């Protein structure tokens, strides 16, 4: 019980630090702390498999992606010199929205007591490492591959689509020609101009 409160306070603190840190790398470090604390909390919720998956997938792979992108983007120093706060007329409505959402959450939680399964207390106080216990790898895997097989396969497809999208977005391939090599070269040259350059009235801004 005390673990829940300690973890919760640390989670909220690290989440606020993620959002308000000065430099993006500090945000990544606080996000790593947040994910590790969440993994510990998942283990206290007897979801050990999800906790380990959280550390493997989130706290290492995704954050490493973030760090790589930050390393690639830090070649121009003026990109990260912008301050963390917008003008106050955006910050205050954002905090107001958070308060409203907190109100919804409190209303939903306090309206009726959350029905807890009668066996939830007794059956889960055993050793968390036993096979086929609730939330262990065996139990989770059996449910994933029998009862919930369709979401599992759909997830594989979602990942495939994501990989195709990322490769397409990040590749530097020249655009395909529609009516000839000169159009492709001009379109490629137009795509390599920076976005912020102003376009003249006729001609260059059009698609064809």
């Amino acid at each position: 019980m005390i673990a829940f409160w300690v973890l919760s306070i640390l989670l909220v603190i690290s989440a606020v630090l993620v959002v308000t840190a000065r430099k993006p790398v500090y945000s990544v470090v606080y996000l790593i702390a947040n994910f590790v604390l969440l993994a510990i909390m998942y283990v206290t919720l007897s979801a050990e498999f999800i906790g380990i998956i959280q550390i493997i997938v989130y706290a290492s792979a995704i954050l490493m992606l973030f760090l790589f992108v930050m390393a690639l983007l830090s070649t121009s120093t003026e990109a990260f010199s912008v301050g963390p706060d917008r003008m106050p007329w955006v910050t205050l409505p954002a905090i107001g929205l958070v308060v409203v959402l907190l109100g919804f959450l409190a209303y939903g939680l306090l309206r009726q007591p959350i029905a807890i399964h009668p066996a939830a207390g007794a059956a889960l106080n055993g050793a968390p490492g036993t096979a086929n216990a609730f939330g262990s790898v065996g139990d989770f895997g059996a449910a994933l591959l029998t009862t919930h097989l369709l979401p599992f396969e759909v997830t594989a497809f979602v990942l495939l689509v994501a990989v195709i999208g990322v490769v397409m977005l990040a590749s530097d391939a020249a655009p395909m020609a529609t009516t000839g090599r000169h159009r492709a070269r001009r379109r490629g040259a137009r795509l390599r101009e920076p976005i912020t350059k102003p376009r003249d009235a006729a001609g260059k801004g059009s698609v064809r």
Partner: protein
Amino acid sequence: MIGVAGLLTRRNPLIMLMAIELMWNAANLSLLAFARAWLNNAGQIFAFLVITVAAAEAAIGLAIVLVTFRRARNVDVDEVASLRG
């Protein structure tokens, strides 16, 4: 909720993506808490799917940020606010 405030307030798209990751994780925590309270495995399986989809979405978001940076040389989302080009 902290993720929502962060998403609305920050201008750096990487931090906006991290705020989105915070929101995914908050949903995961809710899912797992109720999965344990109701002794239902479906909550944990859905949390697994949420982790997967969030990873895919983070990867695509980062790829979009990279492509935008390659063309505009600036990652401030207030500057790169036009969809032209």
